[in-house]
């Protein structure tokens, strides 16, 4: 009995909308540097409005910075949390393809055992079972998970893998404050286990992850009283995408299929036939006939059948391809790019390695618009590029949170946003952190050693800065500004720390 919603009197096309903007007159203001704006959208009444008012700034395809010419640098900017000198020498030795191949096949090609041993020693509870974790203090466990995650992002040699862990953590976003210790199990047994494996395995693990089922209220769903929360997000966020071709009816039916998928008292996945709806259901055109409760535990296969349907659905391939392209390459992937990455998915049965390789295409990265580091990325890259000595990373975890990315604590299941229009405005707190980091001599959190910069002349210091922070591709204008700043005072440690802070605060360091 759905009422047809009334239609607005007119539905202007996008072109019409932009025309509304241009009617307002006023030419593009002098001095407003907006080299990439199209003429159509660049005029309203206010100077800085002009570029932004159509909202296209959100999706702006900003060209790479002029000095960023080396394709190998482009690759490691996108595939790591900030290229360190050792990464740069690696990629220059190995070349684009071999470096990428090593990163994709990280498990066999790059020995990371020292870091893993370090992590196990520092955070011993990460490997425990749900039952073992349950009695432990959640604040301690949350600290272990966040700290270990950021520590790995900073120090792991498996940089591309860690970028994928972040990607899937957002894709299957869970607020740890709702599920407590179960997120530690999800992080280990779902996200990290399958981050570079097969998407089907990842999805199936997530669908039976107690943390996910608890987070999206699946544990409460039962025959006669289905809860739609998980069923909806399973299609909207995890597989098909909101435009992937499902209806509200499919949500309702899938929620019935999944009745009985729940959690045991000890925090394990369990299928409970007594809670299952054995009536006939139709999801995405596939009918599951009615059965009787004597089927018992076998009825879990109804849900598994639908998971397979979702995994093999063409919308899933395209949805994941689009998200991966946005993550690594461009805010607006082309049809050709989506076709290519979705093709890799279909051809390999959802092999994430192959999708990632297809996404990190050398030709595409050569054209790839700038991406802005999210707070977590910024904090990690600053620790990496300053070669900070990290005594206790918990303070840096807190900084990421105060900049807008409290780890594992995004409230809603869509994960942290990735658009620069969302993050760009919060620049002041970034500057504050980067200034503090460069000045830090702390023996309890992290500290930066600036003696490598203090070798003599301002130019020598700037050469080190260029190598450490910008991969040798620092913009000449920035170099001039920093050189003037150093030269404006005595070259001593305090001045050098301020200069390092300013280099970190520069706009170039916000991009990757």
């Amino acid at each position: 009995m759905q009422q047809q919603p009334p239609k607005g009197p007119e539905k202007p096309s996008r072109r019409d909308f932009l025309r509304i903007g241009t009617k307002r007159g006023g030419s593009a203001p002098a001095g407003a540097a907006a080299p990439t704006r199209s003429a159509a959208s660049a005029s309203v009444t206010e100077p800085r409005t002009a570029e932004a008012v159509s909202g296209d700034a959100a999706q702006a395809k900003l060209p790479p910075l002029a000095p960023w010419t080396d394709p190998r640098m482009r690759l490691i900017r996108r595939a790591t949390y900030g290229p360190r000198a050792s990464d740069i020498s690696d990629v220059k030795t190995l070349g684009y393809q071999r470096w990428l191949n090593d990163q994709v096949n990280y498990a066999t090609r790059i020995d990371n055992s020292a870091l893993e041993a370090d992590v196990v020693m520092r955070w011993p509870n990460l490997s425990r079972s749900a039952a073992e974790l349950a009695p432990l203090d959640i604040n301690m466990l949350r600290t272990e998970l966040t700290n270990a995650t950021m520590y790995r992002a900073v120090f792991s040699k498996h940089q591309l893998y860690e970028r994928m862990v972040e990607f899937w953590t957002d894709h299957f976003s869970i607020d740890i404050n709702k599920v407590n210790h179960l997120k530690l199990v999800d992080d280990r047994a779902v996200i990290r286990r399958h981050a570079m494996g097969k998407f089907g395995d990842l999805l199936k693990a997530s669908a039976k992850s107690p943390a996910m089922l608890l987070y999206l209220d699946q544990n409460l769903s039962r025959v006669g009283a289905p809860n739609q929360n998980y069923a909806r997000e399973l299609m909207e966020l995890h597989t098909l995408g909101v435009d992937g071709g499902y209806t509200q009816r499919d949500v309702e039916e899938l929620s019935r299929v999944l009745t009985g998928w729940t959690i045991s008292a000890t925090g394990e996945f369990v299928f409970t036939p007594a809670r299952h709806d054995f009536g006939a259901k139709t999801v995405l055109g596939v009918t599951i006939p009615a059965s009787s409760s004597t089927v018992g535990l076998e009825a879990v296969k109804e849900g598994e059948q639908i998971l397979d349907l979702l995994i093999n659905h063409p919308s899933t391939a395209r949805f994941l391809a689009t998200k991966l392209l946005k993550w690594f390459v461009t805010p607006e992937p082309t049809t050709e790019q989506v076709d290519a990455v979705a093709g890799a998915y279909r051809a390999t049965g959802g092999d994430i390695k192959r999708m990632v390789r297809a996404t990190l295409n050398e030709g595409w990265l050569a054209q790839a618009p700038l991406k802005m580091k999210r707070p977590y990325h910024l904090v990690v890259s600053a620790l990496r590029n300053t070669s900070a000595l990290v005594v206790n990373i918990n303070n840096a975890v807190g900084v990421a949170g105060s900049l807008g990315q409290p780890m594992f604590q995004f409230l809603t299941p869509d994960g942290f946003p990735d658009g620069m229009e969302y993050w760009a405005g919060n620049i002041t707190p970034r500057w504050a952190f980067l200034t503090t980091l460069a000045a830090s001599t702390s023996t309890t959190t992290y500290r930066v050693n600036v003696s490598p910069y203090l070798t003599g002349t301002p130019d020598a210091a700037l050469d080190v800065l260029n190598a450490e922070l910008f991969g040798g591709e620092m913009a000449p204008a920035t170099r001039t500004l920093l050189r003037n700043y150093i030269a404006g005072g005595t070259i001593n440690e305090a001045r050098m720390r301020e200069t390092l802070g300013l280099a970190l605060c520069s706009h170039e360091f916000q991009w990757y």
Partner: protein
Amino acid sequence: MSHHDHSHESGCPEYRGLSRREFIASSSSLSAAALVFPDWLPRITFANNFSSTRDIIVSVFLRGAADGMAMVIPHFEPRYFSLRPNIRTPAPDSLAANRAIALDNRFSIPPAMSGLLPAYRAGDLLVMHAAGQRTNNSRSHFDAQRYMEVGKPADPDISSGWLGRHLATVPPIAAAPVLRGIGLSTGLAKTLVGAPQTLPIADPANYGIGGSATTRAARMALLKDNYEGSVNPLRAAALDAVGTIDVLSRLNINAYTPASGATYPNTGFARGLRSIAALIKSDIGLEAASIDIGGWDTHAMQDPNGGQMANVMRQFAQGLGAFWADVVSTGYRVTVVAMSEFGRNVPENGSAGTDHGRASVMFAMGKRIAGGRVYVQSWPGIEAAQLENRMDLQVTLDYRDVLAEIVQNRLENKNLSFVFPGWTPTFRGVTK
């Protein structure tokens, strides 16, 4: 179209009592003995051009699909109580201690919402029911929030927000504004995208780059030069930030004392409103603020009397109640509007919660809001045949009608076809 163009010349006497300009002027002309100069006031002077009669707008977004049927109860519908056996608030004429409080003969609020009663009884709070997005029935939080914030449902191409386009098409209210819009968050809400001189600032009381005070000016100057050579949106944001750091560093928001004995509770939402109040009163030229309150996605055990729903309603009502006492009741030109992306099923689900539905409630608050009543464009009813999908309250009041009337009558912007493309609003008497 039926635009009611209200004249401002006949403005309310309350407003005459205290304009912001007069407030500043009188404060500074009185002797220290006669008036203790509040130490949070800016020690800076702006050009005297507050000739505008426009309101400052505070847009509140209830994220997660707020259950309008729990916030404003249609107690005249007997079926309401039978559809919600485990999550109902007792009718106002019951004897239960946690009974609802009647707003009129048909609608009531649960005790957790009682923080809004003073504003309602003063005639400053308008409650609107069966409100939402008439032309979009997405049950996706993320789509629906986006559509509401951009001001045009079901158009994936628009990225700027309705408030962003509003600010882009009116002149500033101050001669040299630094911060025209603010979002009380770490990222810019979609509502504000496209707005000039607008920043997300999670904590306006603590906003600066730190480091040595001796070198700060030189470092700020260097960053300004550096970001002049950047690209938007980062370039514009950074240059606005440089100016805003300068202005906010001269305020002492931490020492701000609310008026009328208003007490902001210690919640993120109320702390944000308190900062907005301080910024409004410090006359820096702020025109718009956006603030979120989350926690409304009550799929399970929502309990409007003691559980999650009660908690979040209390935060909402106490926060807005304090803002009313502090800012609205004291005569500042402010309009507050609150909305949520959609409502929830009228019947409760099997988890003593509610799943995604359609219509919810909206609120508007201000001295020039036609408040003190519950406005219903037409009550859709909650009999099975009256519910959308047999589950949901139909939307009879489109949110754009409410916002458009506020934009034109309270914010003095007649560019409604630009702010709300594709929508010809019908004014509903929200403003006066």
